[in-house]
């Protein structure tokens, strides 16, 4: 019974976890501010004709997508609540503010 409940909860949470597309275009993140829920995914899309590299050094949500080629997508899952900024390792003027609830 317990197991079934757990499975159901998991199913519900994946059902409700959303994917948010962040476009990287003209050396900016679009949008550049976003509110998400823990468990949601951020999908970084590269619409520029050159590489990007989204990352955050935030302790709870640390990730580094690595050098991302033009025309590709890469996703990360939000692990913990809090606010943090995502930068591009190649273009430090690119900034995305994330609020995770």
């Amino acid at each position: 019974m317990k197991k079934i409940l757990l499975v159901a909860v998991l199913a519900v949470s994946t059902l409700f976890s959303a994917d948010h597309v962040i476009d990287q275009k003209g050396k900016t993140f679009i949008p550049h501010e976003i509110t998400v829920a823990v468990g949601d995914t951020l999908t970084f899309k590269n619409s520029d004709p050159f590489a990007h590299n989204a990352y955050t050094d935030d302790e709870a949500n640390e990730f580094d997508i690595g050098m991302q080629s033009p025309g590709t997508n890469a996703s990360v899952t939000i692990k913990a609540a809090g606010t943090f900024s995502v930068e591009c390792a190649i273009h430090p003027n690119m900034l995305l503010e994330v609020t995770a609830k």
Partner: protein
Amino acid sequence: MIRTLALSALVATLAITSVSATEDMSKWLRPSEIPQPKNNKLTPERIELGKLLYFDTRLSSSGEVSCATCHHPKRGWTDEKPTAKAVGVDGRVGPRNSPVVLNTAYQNRQFWDGRARTLEQQALGPIEADVEMNMPLDVLLPKLRKIKGYVELFEKAYPGEGITEKTLAKAIASFERTVVSTESPFDKYAKGDKYAISDKAKEGFELFAGKAGCINCHDGFNFTDGSFHNIGLHDGELQGKELGRYLVKMRAAWYGVMKTPTLRDVAKSFPYFHDGSVKTLEEATAICAGGGRFEHNVKNKSLSIVDRHLTKEEIDKVVAFMHTLTGPDMDLTIPTKFPQ
């Protein structure tokens, strides 16, 4: 009736094209404002004090080196003598080529590897660095406090704050912020004066923004977007030689990367690159448009550094364009008398 319609349609299209033409060029125009931090607004007193400190050789241990030794106005704000690596007190040679101080006000990362953010954070580094001015601040600050002229000038610039690390850095940064580009022939062209640059340079600009791919990184009015890249100046593994931004943090994307420098006044500031290994703009262009100095086996080379198959004529055109980014020297009197 139809004719007038057609004509007005034509006029409308013409208007649209000319609008978009000026719109396209607007990103190349120099901004009218200099960005200033809230806690260090520019004032004439701060700029004047910073200028004296910038040119004062008493800020170095040998009494012979000032900021201007390595960032001189007559040389596009790089080394007064065209050396590949910066030469500081007693002829000591540093690890890197001196970048230009021009337009650093618009940069939000300083140094080749971006390790400082603001000009205030940057300013004290070279004073203390043993290969540059080699002057510990706990020696310099008491020394400056004994110079009556400086005590008065600091008081005027930063009333009640005294001569401290903070006010020293703030004053130097204030002067540096005023070091911005003057109007170059390219600026006149961008504003609509079709005859300000040669046809060769115009074709060079087209290549720069198109086939040659320079605009991927040397973008915007300052001809840099502030981005970091490994352009393949070194072969294979760097073996700790020039790890660039990787020294700031060992992030894979930072292996051997350096900041994209401005190309304004670039004709004045040879030799080029962080290692000063290249003397001419032709050679620099051939490297950037030819897939790097080494085409094979360069770890973490930028995806934008590929062979663009430029002919020699095309390289010459790009170089002719870069020469149009040279403006007249800034209106500046280099101080010869210093506070006593």
